[in-house]
C-alpha cells in the first residue's frame, strides 16, 4: 500500500466520516477478545490465549514494507522495554504471509512477533471488525487486551497516519492499578 505524504492531510478526517470506511467497526472495549492461532514463522504458531494472565497489544497494520507501517513497527520495537515494564506483549498482524513477515522483521530488527493473517485471508481482522474489503488489507487498528482476555481499549487510526504509542501506554497504565489490586 502506497501512502503519499499529500494524502495524510485528507486522512485526518475520522474514519467514520470518510466514504471509503467500509469496515463495520472495531470491537469495542468490554468485548471478550476472540481467540486465534496464526503463524508467526513458517513452523511456529502463536495463540492469543498463550498470553492469558498478562495484557496483550494487537497492532493490525495494512502491509509489511510500506513506509508508514515500517515507522509504526520500528517505533513499537523501540518502545518494547516500556511495554515490557507494563507486563504487556506486543503482537503485530497483517495479511502478509510468513515469509514476507520473516524478511520484514529481519530487515527492521523487530523483537516481537508478526502474525500472518493470511489463510483464510484476514479471518482475524474480520473477527475484530477491522478488515477493509475494498483494499484487501486490515485497518491500522490497535487493541489493548487485559489479562483476562477482554478488550480494554481499541483505536482505528486513519490509514495514512501512524497512531504512535501514547494511546497504548495510557491504556496499559489504566489497566495496571486494577490488576495490582486483584
Amino acid at each position: 500500500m502506497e501512502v503519499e505524504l499529500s494524502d495524510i492531510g485528507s486522512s485526518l478526517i475520522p474514519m467514520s466520516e470518510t466514504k471509503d470506511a467500509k469496515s463495520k467497526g472495531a470491537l469495542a472495549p468490554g468485548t471478550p477478545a476472540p481467540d486465534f492461532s496464526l503463524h508467526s514463522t513458517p513452523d511456529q504458531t502463536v495463540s492469543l490465549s498463550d498470553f492469558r494472565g498478562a495484557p496483550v497489544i494487537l497492532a493490525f497494520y495494512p502491509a509489511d514494507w510500506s513506509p508508514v507501517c515500517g515507522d509504526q513497527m520500528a517505533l513499537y520495537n523501540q518502545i518494547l522495554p516500556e511495554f515490557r515494564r507494563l507486563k504487556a506483549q506486543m503482537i503485530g498482524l497483517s495479511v502478509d504471509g510468513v515469509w514476507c513477515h520473516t524478511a520484514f522483521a529481519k530487515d527492521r530488527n523487530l523483537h516481537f512477533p508478526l502474525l500472518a493473517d493470511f489463510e483464510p485471508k484476514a479471518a482475524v481482522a474480520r473477527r475484530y471488525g477491522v478488515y477493509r474489503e475494498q483494499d484487501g488489507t486490515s485497518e491500522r487498528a490497535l487493541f489493548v487486551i487485559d489479562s483476562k482476555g477482554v478488550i480494554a481499549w481499541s483505536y482505528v487510526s486513519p490509514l495514512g497516519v501512524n497512531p504512535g504509542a501514547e494511546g497504548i501506554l495510557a491504556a496499559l497504565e489504566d489497566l495496571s492499578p486494577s490488576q495490582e489490586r486483584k
Partner: protein
Amino acid sequence: MRTHFSPKLVLPVSERDHISGPANAPVTMVEYGDYQCPYCGLANPIVDKIRRELGDRLRFVFRNFPLTEVHPYAEHAAEIAEAAGAHNKFWEMHDMLYAHQDALDDRHLTEYATSLSVPASEVKRALTQHVYADRVREDFMSGVRSGVNGTPTFFINGVRHDGSYERESLLAAIADAAR
C-alpha cells in the same frame, strides 16, 4: 477508561531544552529527530530556511528521538550533540551531524567535536561514560508520551503537525498557530 488521545506536547519547553529564537516568539516549533534518519536529514535544510525566513517570529527547539534499532549510530550522535551543547556548540554540532549522516561512527563524531573545540575529556564522558544517555532517554520518552510517531515529528505551539515537513506545509501550520 480512556478511549481517545490527542497528540500534544506533554513536556513544556523549558531551560532543559536546546532553544533557538526568542522566548516571546508567537510560535514555538519543537522537532523530535534522529541524526541518522534520512527524512530528518532532508527536513533540516527546510527547517533552517524557515528559521532564517521567520527570524524572531519563531522559536525552534530540538529534542532527540533516536530509533536505535534501525539506526545504530543515532544514540551516540545524540549524545555527542548534548556534549557539544554543554560547551555552547549544540546547534553547530546539530547541523554538522545532519550534514554528515553517512559518517556517524565514533571516530567521525570525535572529529566533529574536535573541530568545534569540544574538549577531548567531554567527548570521552559522552561516548564512553554515556553521561548524556539519561537526557536522551528523557527526550525520547517525552516524545513517546506526546504522540511522536516517527521521525521527524514536529509540534507547533504544542500540537503535533501531521502534515509533511515540506516548507509550504510547515509554514502554513506556523501561520495558523500564529493567528
